[in-house]
């Protein structure tokens, strides 16, 4: 009923166009370049790790599949079970070991991603408390809670995408370098294009999701800030 009254009085609704939101959030990142860099480097490290694990899994997998004696020799030298080595041990034993290896890997990945999310959340929370006056002012100017959430999630997403892209590049280069040292040219002759692409995509999704998840709580906190906060003159 009141809304009707208000609509009659003034007309259109309140909006924040996406283009404007993108512009504001990119500038907010730029002005705090130092801290954005720290947050982004957290993502870079986590994704580089994730990417190197996944891509070397794909690479080794494809080398194993090739099942050539020279390659198998190299693999065994690096402590990796191959099909031809099964004679020494029962295949069940080998499988159990591989299983254990994989679960260890999963734990490591999980932990590193968790640390990354916590890092992002922490940095975003700092950014929110630092900007309470700015947020309050925006709310005084008529910003809805959803505008504030939009701005913070966008900021975090940009950090996430940039960090993830760099992380993927670093992870991939590291894997390539290390495996080139160990297996030489075979890396290229049996390069698992599909597997690597899959890892790239999965890492991209993971990195972006991570930064979104990390920013959710801080963004919500920012959105719930009262406009009166803008009036506070301390700090």
């Amino acid at each position, binding site marked *: 009923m*009141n*809304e009707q*009254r*208000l609509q009659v*009085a*003034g007309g*259109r*609704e*309140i*909006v*924040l*166009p996406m283009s*404007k939101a993108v512009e*504001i959030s990119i*500038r*907010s990142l*730029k*002005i705090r370049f130092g801290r954005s860099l720290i947050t982004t480097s957290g993502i870079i490290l986590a994704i580089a790790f994730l990417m190197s694990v996944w891509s070397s899994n794909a690479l080794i997998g494809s080398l194993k599949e090739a099942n050539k004696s020279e390659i198998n020799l190299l693999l065994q030298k690096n402590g990796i079970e191959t099909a031809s080595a099964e004679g020494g041990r029962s295949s069940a034993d080998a499988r159990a070991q591989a299983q254990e290896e994989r679960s260890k890997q999963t734990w490591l990945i999980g932990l590193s991603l968790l640390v990354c999310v916590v890092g992002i959340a922490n940095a975003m929370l700092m950014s929110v408390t630092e900007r309470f*006056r*700015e947020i*309050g*002012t*925006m*709310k*005084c*100017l*008529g*910003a*809805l*809670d959803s*505008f504030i959430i939009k701005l913070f999630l966008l900021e975090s997403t940009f950090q996430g995408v940039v960090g993830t892209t760099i992380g993927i590049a670093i992870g991939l280069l590291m894997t390539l370098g290390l495996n080139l040292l160990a297996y030489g040219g075979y890396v290229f002759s049996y390069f698992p294009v599909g597997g690597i692409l899959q890892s790239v995509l999965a890492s991209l999704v993971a990195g972006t999701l991570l930064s979104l998840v990390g920013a959710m709580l801080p963004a919500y906190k920012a959105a719930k800030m*009262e*406009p*009166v906060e*803008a*009036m506070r*003159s301390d700090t």
Partner: protein
Amino acid sequence: MSTVEKTPSEEQRTVVRTQQVKKIYKMGNTEVQALRGVDLEIYTGEYLSLMGPSGSGKSTLFNMVGGLDKPSEGKVYIDEVDVAQLDAYELAWLRCRKIGYIFQSFNLIPVMTALENVTLPMVFAGLTSDESRDKGMVLLEKVGLGERHSHKPYELSGGQQQRVAVARALANDPAVVLADEPTANLDLRTGTEIIELLKEMNASSGVTIISATHDHKMLSVSDRVVWIKDGQVERIADRADLDIEVTQVGGEEQ
């Protein structure tokens, strides 16, 4: 001093009205009564100053009148709409279009230029970027900062920042402009300039200006001054009374 003569009918239109407004804060187990039943009518087009020492409830009343706070008891009407009845969306709408805010510490958005700061409320109100740019430039010209539209807040002096803030407050042609100690962070001369600017805007566009202040320079431009003490209206003085007081070299309590 006052340049506009208001017709009686104009003066009777109320833009903000409070009815027996009380505000109680709970601090631990003790209750603090910040406002003890305030009745106040603010008329369209007037320049009203709220005065009172800190802790008097002045800020609380000011926030209430600006739709930033809700009363514990009683009612606040802004433009005949009961603020307590509004949901979050309607409140944002009200703040966007009906009220302009001016802050003690300017509160410009640091990442935006002067023009972008002025146009932000217009963006929220759904104006196209062309419309808002043109209107924003007109407003910046009005406050005397036309050629500084591309400057960031940190490239402007305090007085210039506050001028931008005045332009921003007027962005969506609000019914009311709320100025919270607008001169507190400015030196004497710049403070006077801002007060004159506010008065000029008040006179030229007929916008209602409500300012909370300690600043006695405000007295000479105000149509009415409301003194708040212990959560109640202590005294209301209008233009005629004020002229006498000002000429008597205002020996008021500081």
